[in-house]
């Protein structure tokens, strides 16, 4: 039992074959299927983007109400054993490397806690010698009493590791395939364990099988045909829903940002493209959490609010120790929205939405 994807080129072809009538059909479908998603992602849907936005807005409102969840990442280490062409943490980039001690990581968390965050995401480069299950478990046990929810975005782990972390208080796992296109995946992942496409693809199911409450999937947009990438994400979501029906699912849409290493995106993905994906996936799966991080600029985040996304990061720093030290070095990428939690919250309120900092409780997991 493992997710497998149709050939990526086939997905691109399926999308480009979609016509106006496929789009009409998708927009009126009570229960859109994967072909409807293909239509909504196709160039033929472009004239219908406002209708898609309207439908996406209505579905989001119905399911999530006038709320937006807020979280912040804590980068605990930027050591990495992978060489990935697009990433600032890539092993051959000459950047200052740092791994936070448990005390330092807890100090970062304390700062976020004081700022009002209740949901945090622990992020690291992929270097098991620096950040392994023991480290994450110890950190989770320190943080679980302070925060409503603690998630991780680290190297793929085994199911048993995920189970240990779940019992230590980790609520959710985010692991992005980066690209579902196998050839391009192999081209941009030059060395390291991340070269194993299939192991990474099966990571969400290992984490879900371990009992994690929420799994985040995503792709790094700018590597391959974004339309097919979003269709692949939809197929992955649908498969996970079928097989792990009690697991909450989220999708992220990171667009490539300027990073150390001077990687030029292979494909340009505009805000219009990003919005089409958000609307399409919302219509395809009304229940999925859609995350728009501080990679995106403030103005876009303010405008797209309420039209599909359900969760924002805020006040993020992508370098280890960046909250305690305001001038950190060694960031993963530079952010597009530099506002504080208070400022982002104010902007959310100005749109008539409630910025929600606490939407989980550690007691759920202590009961395990």
């Amino acid at each position, binding site marked *: 039992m493992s997710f497998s994807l149709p050939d990526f080129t086939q997905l691109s072809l399926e999308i480009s074959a979609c016509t106006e009538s496929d789009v*009409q*059909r998708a*927009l*009126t*479908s*009570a*229960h859109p299927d994967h072909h409807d998603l293909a239509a909504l992602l196709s160039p033929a849907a472009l004239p219908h*983007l*406002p*209708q898609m*936005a*309207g439908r996406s*807005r*209505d579905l989001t409102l119905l399911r999530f109400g006038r709320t937006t969840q807020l979280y912040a990442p804590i980068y605990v280490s930027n050591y990495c054993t992978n060489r990935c062409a697009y990433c600032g943490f890539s092993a051959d980039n000459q950047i200052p490397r740092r791994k936070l001690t448990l005390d330092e990581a807890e100090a970062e968390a304390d700062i976020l806690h004081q700022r009002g965050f209740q949901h945090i995401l622990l992020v690291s480069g992929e270097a098991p010698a620096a950040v392994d299950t023991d480290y994450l478990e110890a950190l989770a046990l320190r943080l679980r009493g302070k925060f409503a929810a603690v998630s991780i975005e680290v190297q793929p782990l085994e199911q048993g590791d995920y189970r240990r972390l779940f019992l230590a208080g980790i609520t959710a796992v985010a692991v992005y395939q980066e690209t579902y296109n196998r050839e391009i995946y192999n081209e941009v992942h030059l060395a390291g364990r991340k070269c194993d496409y299939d192991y990474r693809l099966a990571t969400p199911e290992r984490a879900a099988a371990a009992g994690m409450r929420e799994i985040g999937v995503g792709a790094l947009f700018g590597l391959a045909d974004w339309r097919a990438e979003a269709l692949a994400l939809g197929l992955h979501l649908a498969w996970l*829903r*079928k*097989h792990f*029906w009690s697991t909450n699912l989220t999708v992220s849409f990171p667009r490539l940002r300027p990073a150390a290493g001077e990687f030029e995106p292979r494909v340009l993905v*505009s*805000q*219009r493209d990003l*919005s089409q994906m958000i609307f399409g996936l919302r219509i395809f799966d009304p229940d999925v959490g859609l995350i728009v991080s501080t990679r995106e600029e403030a*103005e*876009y985040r303010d*405008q797209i609010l309420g*039209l599909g996304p359900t969760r924002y990061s805020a006040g993020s720093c992508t370098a280890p120790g960046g909250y305690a030290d305001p001038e950190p070095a060694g960031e993963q990428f530079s952010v597009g929205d530099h506002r504080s939690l208070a400022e982002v919250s104010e902007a959310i309120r100005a749109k008539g939405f409630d910025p929600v900092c606490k939407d989980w409780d550690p007691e759920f997991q202590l009961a395990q």
Partner: protein
Amino acid sequence: MLTIGGKTFKSRLFLGTGKFSSAAVMKEAIEASGSEMITVALRRVDLNNPLDDIMAALDRENHTFLPNTSGARNATEAIRLAHLARAASGTSWLKLEVTPDPRTLLPDPVETLKATEQLVRDGFIVLPYMNADPILALRLQDAGAAAVMPLGAPIGTNQGILTAFQVAIIIDQARVPVVVDAGIGTPSQAAQAMEMGADAVLVNTAIAIAGNPVAMARAFAQAVEAGRTAFESGLGRKSSEASASSPTTGTLDPDLGFLDS
């Protein structure tokens, strides 16, 4: 083709054998229906008697014999009955029915789940009759049920798919075949279930008590086939609204002028 428990079926119409005026009429109706899956209430037959009229009327070469535990009030009774049936008939197929309320004959979800867990462990191919509860369907599937059999309406009511909203969720979520069982009173209702994407339907009362059960069996076969073909062909969708591109009422579509291109 439909596959359940490793076996494939050309016909998506399953038949029950109760309420017929005679075993001979039942046999003729089964033949007219083209059905390959026939369920028999264990309490109605004597599996140890080779001359039992219902068992004698079944062609076990061409039909999968699906004994059911109709009458069981709890898991313990259903499990005991299942083991006796397997010992006497040699089949591991079982339609699990646990119906403690003799008035409505509605299935007990707790006892049905308990019995499914045990019978799957005991090596049975279990098809549980259940209320149209999507979470129960998922729990039964996780417990190893080979198919799930949500009801359209209570047994023998001929009311049709009153549970359509719930059945649609079950069909959407299931990894195992979904067989709509009970309540189907007319061929059009059978076709409706098939158009919704059900993998099969089980019909008994509507055929058994028809003026001409044999002709009615044929009508159900045609309806099931038509409904399935319609589902596979991709039904045109109902639209609740006219698709004007510039709506004049209701909520306006958002202005996307802020986007770069």
